[in-house]
């Protein structure tokens, strides 16, 4: 009996936890810019090579998605993955490197590689490695294409660096009439070209989905008229010249129709113009000012600005059911609404306490964030991948273009031209 009792008083720490795999669930992370470095391209004495790596660096930085190491902190210069020593690069996720080699009189070969610094050296760590051939005049374009490839690889989202912007340039001279120019430039503001010049105002350029045409409003006949310009040939034709207002053109996503704003008594209404037959179909009605149409990427929804509730707000118009829904509700004025490519965010111009700023509204939870804070913003236009916004602002009485990333992290004012710029439109 004693033995049994004593036997029962056993060591108590007998319980071991059996080791199968331990289960963990991760649901929350952080939202920060990806740390990356762009090594100046070989050979560094060639200004064309450093121009290419500078363009890639600036594109990635201005997108807001990347934290690019400043070039003065770089002191080793690998140009291929084999030259990379991981101990030289701390706290970076990836490395971009490459070279520019002249092939013949006017042709160059740009080689570049993207390396994952957290994978051990070897073929698995090289995420991208390619060559492209360009002429001297298309070197900038080649650099933007490379930036697009890197952006897509590391974020999964297509890049928007190899795109164009259209805008209106106004040159005002004392004692002289102003001159107006419809311009097209690279999305970073470089290589501007004049498409149309006029002594009468031009406004509201809008790109066709294939990037070959721009619709715009011109006052050259002392009244508003909408023209469609062929960007490559320079030819244009008149599509609307009704009495009163003809404004705010916007192409549908199939490029076959143009939404535009026409006056109806004291109000303005939005109509759809078939570009082949020039037949018009009214879209909105009622006693209100409806303007600034813009189409979603899937072509099913049209956004517009309307004061039907008393003050200008953004509404959505379902093109199949004709249902109209109010989308915006902050500040005392919302206009120029556009949907991002993923259709989850609404970018618009917001006025609060007299300050005009660009706002982004999350359509799923209703949160609204301001992207600018100088109070002078106008006419936002969203990039085709929904990650950046170009807008016009004023500094020292001069109109300038500003670029801001959709998360507000990266801001840039484009270099000034010889005049006042306004009405930017981001091409496809």
């Amino acid at each position, binding site marked *: 009996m004693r033995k049994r009792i004593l036997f029962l008083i056993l060591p108590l720490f007998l319980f071991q936890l059996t080791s199968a795999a*331990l289960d*963990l*669930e*991760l*649901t929350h*992370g952080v939202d920060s810019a990806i740390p990356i470095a762009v090594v100046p391209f070989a050979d560094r004495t060639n200004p064309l090579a450093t121009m290419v790596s500078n363009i890639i660096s600036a594109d990635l930085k201005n997108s807001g998605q990347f934290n690019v190491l400043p070039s003065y902190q770089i002191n080793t210069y690998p140009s291929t993955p084999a030259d990379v020593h991981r101990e030289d690069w701390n706290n970076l996720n990836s490395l971009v490197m490459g070279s520019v080699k002249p092939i013949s009189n006017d042709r160059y070969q740009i080689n570049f590689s993207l390396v994952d610094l957290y994978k051990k050296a070897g073929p698995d760590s090289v995420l991208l490695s390619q060559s492209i051939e360009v002429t001297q005049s298309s070197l900038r374009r080649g650099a933007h294409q490379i930036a697009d490839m890197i952006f897509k690889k590391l974020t999964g989202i297509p890049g928007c660096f190899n795109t164009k912007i259209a805008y209106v340039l106004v040159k005002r001279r004392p004692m002289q009439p102003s001159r107006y120019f419809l311009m097209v430039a690279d999305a970073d503001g470089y290589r501007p070209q004049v498409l149309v010049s006029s002594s009468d105002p031009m406004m509201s350029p809008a790109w066709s989905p294939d990037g070959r045409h721009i619709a715009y409003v011109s006052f050259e006949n002392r009244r508003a008229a909408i023209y469609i310009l062929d960007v490559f040939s320079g030819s244009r034709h008149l599509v609307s010249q009704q009495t009163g207002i003809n404004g705010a053109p916007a192409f549908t996503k199939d490029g076959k129709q143009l939404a535009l704003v026409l006056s109806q008594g004291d109000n303005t209404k939005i109509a759809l113009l078939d570009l082949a037959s020039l037949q018009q179909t009214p879209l909105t009605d009622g006693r209100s000012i409806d303007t600034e149409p813009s189409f979603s990427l899937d072509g099913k929804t049209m956004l517009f600005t309307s004061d039907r509730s008393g003050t200008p707000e953004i509404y959505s118009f379902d093109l199949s059911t004709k249902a109209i829904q109010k989308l915006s509700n902050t500040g005392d004025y919302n206009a120029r609404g556009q949907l991002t490519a993923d259709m989850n965010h609404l970018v618009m111009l917001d006025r609060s306490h007299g300050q005009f700023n660009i706002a982004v509204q999350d359509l799923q939870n209703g949160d609204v964030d301001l992207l600018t804070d100088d109070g002078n913003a106008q006419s936002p236009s969203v990039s085709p991948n929904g990650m950046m916004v170009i807008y016009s602002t004023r500094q020292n009485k001069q109109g300038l273009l500003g670029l801001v990333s959709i998360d507000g992290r990266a801001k840039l004012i484009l270099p000034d031209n010889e005049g006042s710029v306004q009405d930017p439109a981001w091409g496809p």
Partner: protein
Amino acid sequence: MNERTLRYRRSALYFSGGLHLSIILMLTLSFNIKTASTLPAATTSLVSIQAVSVNQHSVQQEISKIKHEQEVKKQTEMNHQKALKRSADQAKQERAQEQKQLALLKVEAAKLQAQKKQIEVDAKNRLADIKKQQALAQNQLASFKRQQEALAAKPKMPPTPNAPTINHDAEKDLLQKINDEQQHLASINQQMLQSELEKYKSLILNAIGRQWNMPANVNKNLSAQFQINLDANGNVLSIQLLKSSSDAVLDRSVQLAIQKASPLPIPSSPDLLSSFKELRLTVRPEGLMGGAA
């Protein structure tokens, strides 16, 4: 000769010397005057004619050249100033941005520190409670043991008809109590180990989550599963993708986070260490840390 002759001869000498000198002087002076008035005049008039015509033309040229150079200089200087100002403004903007970001990061870091402290404080408190319970249970068991020994040490009574039954019941009762206490103690230990386990699981998730840069516009309904093997110091030995989320960028972002978080925080006590050799991590990109969705 006499004095009068000498005096006469001296004065004649003087007179002749003076006359010669003055004649010579007159000749040289007249010669000079002649040259001064004629030759130089001729040269100046020749030179001046040429000089006037040549100088005027080239001077004009020079003036306009200098003016032009000055203009160009002024222009480059202005452009240079503009460019400087622009880059100064840019730098200022960037600096302001960096300051903002730094401030945000500091706030985040402080938040995380507070969270970590709270987890540790909670765990410590629980551990203290459990230890208290354990001590109590130990005491009770010790007293039961003593009781039981006292009972066993009692001299055996001559068996009376009813006595054995009573003794037997008391013994059974005591054995039952001992058994219960043992089980209670065992479960307390189990709890203690379990809470240590939970503490380290949260620390690991926190460490990986802080490094997990969620891809922009990621689909929140996706999920991936990874197997992570650790060594005795928490270093990540291998990461295996058990089930892909179907979004390669999302998969890669998690792998990167795990690598960056290595070595992971794991317990040092040998009882628990074995549980942390292999982790199975399920990932779902629901939102951002700190409560923001």
